[in-house]
């Protein structure tokens, strides 16, 4: 039984704190469950001034703006397929409520901790294995209300399924790491939970795995996940019992009994792939010195051939998302990924390697619009400065 936290509306206090911070120019570190604190850059002073060198280790700054007190489910209509919650609501609470009504969040957000909140899930914009089939966080986002960098409360989008007319500002907040606004309320689309779920494992080599995944994804099958863990292609069928049964007959592979746990482990990075790789230097193998190699998150076209970089690989999203443990120099990794039109994010950096930009550098021309949007929503640059891009997001245009 999940102990539900009591709903609480801290909107007014949060608004006052942001307004005060705006007047004082005090940077804020937005925090909810703190389950994804490892992801992204740290909130830093160099995010606020363009003069400092990006190479210098940034000074971690900012007062914590805790959103855990702003929580609770505001509205949930299973018939409409929309849930509206305050940002600090724990994700597990939302999942439990949806499960009671036979529904799910289609984008399968990773939690990474019991405390994970809906706000953090939207701000980070991470989606699970179902993403290529059921859509991403962005696709399920319908509307939100935010506090901008001046403490003004704004609402964008709606609480209805179906695209909203006009500029879609709500979806701009997905993956913005809180740097455009403090998320207060979020409306998400919900989907019916599938009647039946079934996972098939088909042992193959890497090259064949890419072919298999590509072929499967091109067929009208009730698939909701395709992954390759280095040994076998895992295929998840989900839907009505009849459809799954019919598809099962067409597909090669053995059914695995622990399918649900397997996908959950992948989502939460508890799968053995995410546990195993350690630095391969012999004298560092003493237990207390063991550190993992950096974990990269690569986004590529699904059928991209293996990149030939040294390290260990896990293919999710039918090949479009590749987890990669490697100590290879980050420039090599980024160059190889860029040559294929993709991008690479340093997802976990437990060794604390310095000087590596976490997110892939922006293509030319787009930086200008990113900076203009940041300045528009957060003119004093107090909301998570530097969390998305360490040095450039707050520079004024004439300072460049």
């Amino acid at each position, binding site marked *: 039984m999940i102990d539900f936290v009591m709903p609480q509306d801290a909107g007014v206090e949060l608004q006052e704190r942001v307004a005060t911070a705006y007047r004082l120019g005090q940077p804020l570190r937005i925090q909810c469950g703190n389950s994804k604190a490892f992801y992204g850059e740290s909130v830093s002073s160099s995010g606020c001034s363009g003069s400092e060198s990006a190479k210098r280790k940034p000074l971690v700054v900012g007062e914590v703006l805790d959103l855990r007190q702003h929580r609770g489910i505001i509205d949930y209509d299973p*018939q*409409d*397929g929309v849930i509206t919650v305050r940002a600090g609501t724990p994700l597990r609470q939302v999942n439990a409520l949806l499960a009671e009504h036979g529904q799910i969040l289609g984008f399968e957000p990773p939690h990474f901790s019991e405390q994970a909140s809906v706000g953090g899930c939207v701000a980070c*914009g991470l989606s699970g294995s179902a993403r*290529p089939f*059921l*859509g*991403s966080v*962005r696709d399920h986002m319908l*509307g939100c209300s935010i506090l*901008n960098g001046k403490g003004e409360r*704004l*609402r*964008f989008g*709606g609480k*209805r*399924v*179906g*695209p*909203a*007319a*006009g*500029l*879609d*500002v709500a*979806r*701009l907040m997905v*993956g*913005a790491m809180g740097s455009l606004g403090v998320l207060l309320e979020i409306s998400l689309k919900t*989907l*019916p939970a*599938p009647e039946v779920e079934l996972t098939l494992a088909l042992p193959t080599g890497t090259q064949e795995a890419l072919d298999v995944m590509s072929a499967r*994804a*091109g*067929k*009208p099958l*009730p698939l909701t996940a395709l992954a390759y863990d280095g040994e076998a292609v895992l295929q998840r069928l989900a*839907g*009505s019992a009849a*459809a799954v049964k019919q598809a099962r007959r067409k597909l090669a592979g053995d059914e695995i009994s622990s399918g649900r746990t397997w996908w959950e482990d992948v989502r939460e990075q508890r799968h053995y792939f995410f546990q195993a790789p350690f630095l391969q230097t012999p004298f560092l193998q003493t237990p207390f010195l063991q550190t993992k190699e950096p974990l990269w998150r690569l*986004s*590529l*076209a*699904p*059928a991209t051939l293996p990149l030939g970089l040294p390290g260990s690989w896990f293919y999710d999203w039918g090949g479009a*998302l590749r987890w990669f443990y490697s100590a290879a120099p980050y420039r090599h990794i980024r160059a190889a990924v860029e040559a294929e*039109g993709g*991008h690479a*994010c340093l997802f976990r950096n437990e060794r604390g390697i310095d000087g590596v930009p976490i*997110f*892939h*550098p*922006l*293509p030319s021309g*787009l*930086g200008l*619009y*990113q900076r203009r949007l940041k300045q*528009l929503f957060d003119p004093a640059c107090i909301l998570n400065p530097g969390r998305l*891009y360490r040095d450039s997001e707050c520079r004024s245009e004439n300072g460049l």
Partner: protein
Amino acid sequence: MREAIQQLQQCLGIDAVLQDPEQLRAYAGGGLTNRCQWPVAVLLPDSVAQIQSILRICKSRRLPVVTRGAGTGDCGGAAPRPNGVLLSLDRLNRILEVDPRNRTATVQAGVTHQCLLDGLAGSGLYSGAAYVTQDTTTVAGSMAKNTGAQPAAVSGHIINLKWMDADANLLSLGGSGYDAPGYDLLPLLMGSEGGLGIIVEVTLRLWPRPVQHTPLLTAIWNRAQAVRIVLMRLFKAIIPSQLPNLCPQYNDTECQYLHAIKTCFDPDLLLNPGTVLPLAGNPSCQMDDQGGVAIPPKDP
């Protein structure tokens, strides 16, 4: 004005600059027939480079540019300005690449949905969009209008988008994978009605073509019931083709932000002026009589 037209004729060729009233008549309005206005000229570029030149010429002379796909929209997105030019994407009508392994198709902005469907015949794939007007509706037009895509949101169908900003820079959003670094500008451009930039090329995700596609007529008592029917069918492999766009209500500050976003992308308000914000419920968000954007006095 005459000099500008001459310059455009030099750049595009005389046959790609329509000025004859009989020819202009066809472009006087879109699906919104009560807002018919005649542009100074209709431009028919057939390459990205030509669009770039058009934007440069128009920017230097501060001529408003309204971009038009097929003109089937009924929100006035393709309604020309009497003091500006209408840029038609009709001639950008080539399917550039179909990649069955990655399930993507790269098309120019003026390709119609039907043309894309025909181009994909035999591949077992389709673009996921279905329209009443798919014979005429263009890919980029329906994206700028944010309509028609199911089961995912329109932005969920796009892998990569090449667009031109008001300064005539050719920019690319997305990559080869399903997400991209930085702020996600894709959803902003979807639904911008051409007001933030001109979409010139799109790489779309393709989906397995359904085995069967059957129209279904259902008696529905209210909206909630309609949505429920749609939702409950999703996992039973009956995918609805379209849900209508709904208009959120915005207050003054929110409207100012929407306007400010427009000016972030198009400071001179030359691209589809007045058509970006079809908003209900707030007079300060609505278009003025001349079709210009009613800019609120206060800068957010």
